[in-house]
């Protein structure tokens, strides 16, 4: 099928960027979205032009490296699907597809569609862990964990850190990402001792990094490829307020 791509091209962080149009003649419906970009890049290289830079690695929806705003929707039109798992059969012959990078101040554009998401690492470093130095662990069966808690913790822990929630949020908030981690660890008995300080530290870092505040619009969960639910944010809020009231 034929497609018209409009792709954001930007040389470096401080350069101005623009949307550039590329016609594509021979797109197979079995290609993934990134394979379609591969084909474009091969053509560009042979024509002596610079290929489009985009992030990707696993190409099976788990590493969280890929992330594209496709026609105004983070990761594109398919729900619960990362850009790398999106297949061209979901587009129609003759479509125009606009591809932009994630946009948020804490996610500066590095080049073309590549953004710097290290702000997420800063949030985790500020408290998104359980302090359990190697070798200090009791037997794994020492503390049973009720299955519902373990399952809910797992669901929250499935976050792949892709940043789609930030990209889609009208406030540029990273609350869903932050709340997913707070929920995962806060639900497990092992995570209790640091539960409130963790929530406080992660939210503080989140704010300092320049992410916007959450206004519960739910745009984030709608695009989240792992379906992290919105009530993780409620849980984080509750932990933070309870922590503040305690101290």
């Amino acid at each position, binding site marked *: 099928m034929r497609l018209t791509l409009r792709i954001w091209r930007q040389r470096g962080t401080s350069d101005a960027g623009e949307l550039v149009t590329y016609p594509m003649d021979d797109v197979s419906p079995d290609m993934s979205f990134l394979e379609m970009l591969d084909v474009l890049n091969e053509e560009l290289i042979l024509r002596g032009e610079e290929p489009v830079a985009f992030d990707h690695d696993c190409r099976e929806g*788990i590493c969280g490296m890929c992330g594209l705003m496709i026609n105004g929707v983070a990761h594109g039109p398919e729900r619960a699907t990362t850009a790398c798992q999106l297949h061209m*059969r979901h587009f129609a012959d003759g479509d125009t597809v606009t591809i932009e990078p994630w946009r948020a101040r804490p996610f500066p554009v590095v080049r073309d569609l590549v953004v710097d998401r290290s702000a997420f*690492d800063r949030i985790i470093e500020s408290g998104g862990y359980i302090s359990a130095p*190697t070798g200090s662990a009791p037997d794994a069966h020492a503390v049973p964990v009720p299955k519902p808690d373990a399952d809910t913790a797992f669901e929250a822990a499935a976050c792949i850190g892709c940043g789609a929630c930030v990209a889609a949020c009208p406030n540029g908030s990273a609350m869903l990402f932050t709340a997913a981690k707070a929920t995962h660890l806060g639900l497990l008995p092992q995570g209790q001792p640091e539960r409130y300080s963790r929530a406080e530290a992660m939210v503080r870092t989140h704010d300092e990094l320049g992410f916007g505040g959450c206004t519960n619009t739910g745009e984030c969960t709608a695009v989240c490829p792992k379906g992290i639910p919105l009530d993780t944010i409620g849980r984080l809020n509750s932990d933070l307020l309870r922590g503040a009231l305690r101290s």
Partner: protein
Amino acid sequence: MSQLYAEGTPIADERAPDGPIETRWDRRRFAARLVNPANKRRLTVIVVGTGLAGGSAAATLGELGYRVESFCYQDSPRRAHSIAAQGGINAAKNYRNDGDSVHRLFYDTVKGGDFRSRESNVHRLAQISTEIIDQCVAQGVPFAREYGGLLDTRSFGGAQVSRTFYARGQTGQQLLLGAYQALARQISAGTVRMHPRTEMLDLIVVDGRARGVVVRDLVTGEVTSHLADAVVLATGGYGNAFYLSTNAKGCNTSAIWRAHRRGALFANPCYTQIHPTCIPVSGEHQSKLTLMSESLRNDGRVWVPVLAGDDRPAGEIPDAERDYYLERMYPSFGNLVPRDIASRAAKHVCDEGRGVGPGGLGVYLDFADAIARLGRPAVEAKYGNLFEMYQRITGEDPYAVPMRIYPAVHYTMGGLWVDYDLRSTIPGLFVIGEANFSDHGANRLGASALMQGLADGYFLLPNTIGDYLVDGPFDAVDPAHQAVADVESEVRGRIKALLMVDGDRTVDSFHRELGQLMWEHCGMERTDAGLRKALAQIPALREEFWRRVKVPGEGAELNQSLEKAGRVADFLELAELMCLDALHRTESCGGHFRAESQTPDGEARRDDENFSYVAAWEHTGVGTPPVLHQEHLRFEHVTPSQRSYK
């Protein structure tokens, strides 16, 4: 064959203690000298890679008080390829009381590896497996649990005991996030300095010791050196030499290959694991292959049409005209035969022209019987997410039409040679995780790579590296030292050379061609003639690469074509060694099947008399014959036997 390589002196693993196998690790730990805690702060360790092995090692070394410099090529340490592992992690906890034990896991692993691994290493791995689960649970890894709140396990990859711990189909992700979080904690504590989007391009050896790495900042393109008292490589496997594999796109051999070129021996490069249940190639554009969990074979039935060229839709082929070939050939194991056997059988039926789907490269994995027997809801509960994934990729509904699967390259058992202490043959260079060759022999059991990566990173390396570092801090290396400057300028020269070719073929086109060649001749079934053909073609392809590759852009910027070009250039060298290793090993063992060495009924025939050794290769230059060093394997606790799944 003798002009292809030279026989060198045998090598031995000198650090493994003798005596009772159960206490070897204890005795080794006790014999290892300890670093004074105050000194640890003055010792710097470079850890390249943040997968299960590298992430856990960097975090633990940081906790111990060393100064750690950690590198990965992704934008965050959380994205290492370990994240993609689905099935689970083995541990000899025997929580099920089903007869498991350290000794059984040890035995299964040695046997599964077709008696090509070291007893000492494997036994230690089995011992440590239980601690790994404890550690991960303490970190908050949300393993699957039963209603009583205790951990659930399953049997995996044909194991007769239920010793695989899992977190839905995302075990690797959850384990890696555990290690990543431990690492994040050390980063914020200041003991680990993280360098994401930074690729190691060479190793710095000063006065015979590994003292640093040369890296390229993938954002700015800047080439710099980092110096330390020891270097740890945890850079994963090299399955991408085949272009199409289940590995992430960025997985590469560059770090270990560069170290190999600087003197580290490369062991068993030809041992490759090919996974039977992957989604088949859909066309020319295919960029990677997706694994479907092995657990599908528990309920799915594998078949192809009896007649070659039968292109009726699956539903129109009556039962009598279907060949459930695994059930036919292996009545006692049926669809659950080990990976290598299932893969080879699929290749055979496709070679006979009985394959299904585009290009005839696929076999059916049919759930119709399971759905009839268990009901759709039960099948959905068990495999729902896998079915969804399949449908997302292929656009076909596996509840209605059988899945199509085909084998794909999945894991590489070979890697840099290391001793019991995980030391390579370059003093100060340690290698852990999939990057080393150590524990899986000629074939890895399902759910054992995660176990090995974490054993290496959390528990082994942090204990063994001290015995080396106790002699440090070594004399500070001046960044202007000749050895450093030389490596740096070599790296810069290579980048420049890649950019200067300015030919007419893309990097990917070379990678694809190399992959096809390797798949054809060094894949599931290898022959003398095929390997010789590959050995003639690879150098020619390499030469063409350096003449015709086109790498656009510049070195001093984010340049993904340049990154790929460097990796493919290294694969083009490694591929030759893989084929040579495969050619020299004229026996069949584990994942390495030589057509010339099979039993009358077509099964692999090992040759213990001549090949019970680790093949450790020494580099002598590109295109010049390498030197083979043999490490002989001794079996005192397990008697090598022929595998049989009939």
